[in-house]
């Protein structure tokens, strides 16, 4: 009996595994390519052209002209400023309020289960519906906000809330905060639940007050959860579009035109797909920078 000869080009076990694995992930790859990679590559190609929406096949190569046009355009930078303002204020407020709510639920006061369940409601409402709802609330002639403030005697006459650019922006932010606080609260509450109570009890025995216990024990342990919530919300807030489309349509006087809204106008109202594609990539660049900053700030070596 001789040992059967090994075929020279037979696969090793590792190669076989790779091959089988490849076939298994192939459907997933195809889906990702079809719905993510292909549109990204297509948009990237478009951003170097002056393709009109009436004929969306890439045409009229213009190099970096779209990018240069926006980077030298005050309208673009004004939109970036507004977007940054929206992002910083809304995400900042959401984090503070969300942390407060998470701590409140974690302390398990009477009715905490009810509080936790009802928190889901604003988050479960679609953004468009949320926007429509707040648009009614803010209405100058028959909105609930005017009614409430007037009844309480805080204002002596109804105010036109959405007729002033800065106020309009702040009120859109309030609507966004109302919608998104639950998301952060729930993530932080879940993270809080994983912190062993012994740690705090030990610190309390050693004489640490509530403030110290929060900053020295809970906060460091919550940092990974905060990072995740912040990155997700910041990226979302930076691309804000639907809530603005419903509440203000970018008005008054472009006061709520954020960078995504500008992209929409450029692509669909003005019909310049190439310019819109360039704007999309500029948005991506900004969000990437922000994500990197977060990781630098919060994901330091000492946390690992």
């Amino acid at each position, binding site marked *: 009996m001789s040992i059967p000869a090994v075929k020279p080009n037979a696969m090793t076990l590792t190669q076989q595994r*790779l*091959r089988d694995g*490849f076939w298994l992930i*192939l459907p997933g*790859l*195809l889906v990702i*390519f*079809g719905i993510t990679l*292909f549109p990204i590559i297509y948009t990237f190609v478009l951003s170097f052209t002056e393709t*009109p*929406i*009436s*004929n*969306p096949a890439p045409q009229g190569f213009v190099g970096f002209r779209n990018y240069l046009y926006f980077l030298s355009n005050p309208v673009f930078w004004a939109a970036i400023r507004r977007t940054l303002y929206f992002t910083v204020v809304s995400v900042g407020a959401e984090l503070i309020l969300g942390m407060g709510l998470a701590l409140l639920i974690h302390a398990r006061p009477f009715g905490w289960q009810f509080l936790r369940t009802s928190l889901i409601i604003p988050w479960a409402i679609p953004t468009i519906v949320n926007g429509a709802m707040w648009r009614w609330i803010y*209405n*100058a*002639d*028959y909105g609930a906000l005017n009614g409430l403030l007037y009844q309480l005697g805080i204002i002596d*006459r*109804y105010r*036109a809330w*959405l*007729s*002033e*650019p800065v106020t*309009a922006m702040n009120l859109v932010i309030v609507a966004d905060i109302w919608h998104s606080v639950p998301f952060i609260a729930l993530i932080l509450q879940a993270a809080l639940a994983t912190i062993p109570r012994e740690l705090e009890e030990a610190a309390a025995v050693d004489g640490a007050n509530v403030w110290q216990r929060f900053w020295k024990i809970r906060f460091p342990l919550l940092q990974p959860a905060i990072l995740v919530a912040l990155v997700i919300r910041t990226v979302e807030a930076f691309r804000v579009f639907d809530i603005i489309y419903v509440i*203000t*349509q*970018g*008005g*008054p*006087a*472009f*006061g709520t035109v954020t960078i995504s809204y500008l992209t929409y*106008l450029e692509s*669909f*109202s*003005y*019909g310049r797909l190439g310019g819109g594609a360039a704007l999309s990539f500029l948005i991506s660049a900004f969000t990437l920078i922000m994500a990197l900053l977060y990781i630098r700030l919060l994901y330091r070596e000492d946390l690992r």
Partner: protein
Amino acid sequence: MRAVSRLVFVVVLLALVVMSAAGCASPQQASGPKVVKVLAMQQAGPTPEEMNAIVAKFNQSSPNVKVEIEYVSYDALHDKIVTAMATNPPSYDVVLVDDIWYAEFVKNGYLWDVTDKIDQNTKQEVFSTAWDITSVNGRIYGMPWLLDQKYFYYNTEILEKAGVDVPQTWEDLIEASRKIKEMGLVEYPIVWSWAQAEAAICDFVALLYGNGGTFVDSNGNPAFNNEKGVQVVEWMVKTVDEGLSNPASISYVEEDVRNVFSQGKAAFALNWLYMYDLAALNPDESQVVGKVGLGLVPAFKGSGVPSATINGSMGFSVIDKSPNREEAWEYVKFLTSEPIQKEYSAHLLPVWSGNYEGQALEELKSLNESNPVTVPAFSAQIVYAHVRPKVPFYPEFSKALQLALQEALTKQKSPAQALNDAAAKWNELATK
């Protein structure tokens, strides 16, 4: 590993081929009735319920065609059409087109040239001004459908209490408003649709022509920014400062105007025809039923015109790339036909000129409760209605002019500066 990456490359290539093939493949010919998809709007004109009823009637009478209709708000309509046109075949066979979009859509080749499909009788019977709406460079691209203009609405009860007559000029209206405000009848006597939307341009055009101004000069260059236009915007700002115009107008479109007026919170308003039936006659929609007056839109003293308003007409057009153009055209003809237009004349008056004289006029006026008021108002006002310029770059220019009006109203720029900036945008777009 190399084999794997080569395989990935092949798969990616394959995926590209499959996807591009799918993009070109023609849709399968389905048996049964041909489907005609229609895009219309839910704002002004007939209500969706009325439009659905018309569709049901058509489907019943033509078993080989099945019409499906969708609605969006006016402010979403343009962008919805433009995105739908990016696919082949397009998502709609028939679309509702505003007169200011015809130039752009024809330039982009969206619309079917129907010049030769319109018989001589139709050509003569429909108002010639209505054909101007759907024509570009002498060719016809659709059937006129909604012949609309802004009308002057007033609350008769408030005017009576204040003891003022119906204003004939904007100066009279300011006088009356001051009196109404002083007596505390309403906080803000006038409500406008000055939001950052096309609605603001409509009100501005009515005021501009009422001041003896014009949108463009005889050479087609911007004229809205000359002294007549600047005076108008200064007047707009002043009425807000004085508390006569509702400050919320800066965030209002037509539907908000209707809500405020229908609640009795305004003495005066400009709006399209549809508001009359809803505000004056419909107790489910209005608290001022029976107290609504309809008159000529005022003009400024010394302007030399008795009245001026905006012409905001629309047409229904067939998409050029539609595989069912003939069937789609049948539906458009049905929708704009004389019997249908007369039946639904409470929210839209017929485009057929024969209905406005003699016996036919009396018949039209007797069709419903609103026509005795709206039909004479239509005939009196339409001679003072002005159209906005027909240029392919209108949507982008309009956004710039909306911005200019709002910058002036929120005092970020002086009226003259804001209008000059908008005119500069026009020149930039026109030379592109």
